[in-house]
């Protein structure tokens, strides 16, 4: 069973077998399974920094939320934009690319989980743990871009307007995902702040406003 899962993972990352770009039957179920299994497993490791099982479970439940909700919020705009650009017929193929990218991100995060765990066991500080997870997330995002590019290459070759759709998706997705990640804090769990599902006043602050504040403080 586990051997089959590893083979499937390999197929996903190499874009072959049922994950071949443009294959007739889209593997929706397999892609969703990767997200809902690999995402929480990475979340378990990420949330284990403070040594609290409850915090690890919270982080595990929030990882698929982070990946899934960001996509759901942006999807209506992606659909309308594809329609306005005259690309409605390719919408399922584009969605398949997006989902495959999400699955790749989740799987890459899972692959990096042992490194994060090693850093935790080595006694890294809280800022260090945040940095480790930040690097893991950036690396996984890069891997997701590779898969997304594989799926989008034939679409762009067929109609260059797909490039506009892709850029619009990425901009809106990152914009929403940053705020959602901010809202769903804490993932790692600071040892000084106690175990919580969401931070106090989670719905009052805004990641983008905080970034602007930070930038204005730096330029003063």
């Amino acid at each position, binding site marked *: 069973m586990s051997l089959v899962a590893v083979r499937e993972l390999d197929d996903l990352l190499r874009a072959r077998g049922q994950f071949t770009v443009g294959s007739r039957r889209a593997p929706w179920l397999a892609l969703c399974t990767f997200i809902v299994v690999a995402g929480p497993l990475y979340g378990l490791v990420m949330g284990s920094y403070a040594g609290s099982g409850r915090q690890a479970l919270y982080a595990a439940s929030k990882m698929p939320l982070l990946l899934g909700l960001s996509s*759901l919020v942006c999807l*209506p*705009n992606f659909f309308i934009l594809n329609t306005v650009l005259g690309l409605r017929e390719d919408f399922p193929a584009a969605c398949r690319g997006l989902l495959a990218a999400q699955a790749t991100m989740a799987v890459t995060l899972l692959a990096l989980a042992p490194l994060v765990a090693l850093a935790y066991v080595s006694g890294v500080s809280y800022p260090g743990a945040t940095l480790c997870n930040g690097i893991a997330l950036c690396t996984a995002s890069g891997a997701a871009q590779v898969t997304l590019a594989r799926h989008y290459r034939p679409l762009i070759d067929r109609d260059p307007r797909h490039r506009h759709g892709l850029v619009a998706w990425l901009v809106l997705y990152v914009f929403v995902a940053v*705020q*959602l990640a901010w809202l769903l804090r804490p993932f790692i769990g600071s040892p000084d702040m106690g175990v919580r599902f969401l931070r106090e006043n989670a719905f009052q602050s*805004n990641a983008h406003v905080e970034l602007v504040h930070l930038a204005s403080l730096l330029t003063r």
Partner: protein
Amino acid sequence: MFSALARSRLDLSATLRLLLVAVTVNLAVLASFGPVIAFFTFSTSSYPFMKLLNVAFFVVAGCIGLGFLWRTLEPILDGQAAPTRKDAEEDTEGAEPALAWSRARSRPAGRVFRAWLLIYGAVGAQMGWLLRPFIGSPNREFQWFRERDSNFLHDLVQTLMSLGS
């Protein structure tokens, strides 16, 4: 009026139909931003941020709607297919290619559209300002219309500055 001046083949009802299509596209794109606005409304209490986010989405939706209108309008106003860069270069042999393309783009259709775009953008922004509040400041009483003071651009700059303070 501009369309008639450019001797387009569009009569008044056809022009209105085209504008209606552009507004529909504009509204469809705006509606598609609805979930994003709902998410940020739910997760932030920063009024300046919400104002700027709405302005940004209106600008994006407006540009897409007008882009759609332009694609439809250009061949009709010119009475021929829209010029491609290659066509323009072939039409003006020996001339600087970029300049030739730029000349082709400045046919009556382009001029009409740009003039109309300026008016539409200015009127749209100021109309939005006159009809405010849309979001509703959390620190002010409910009201249908606000008193007439300042203008859209002035408030936009002030909001941008207040976001960083």
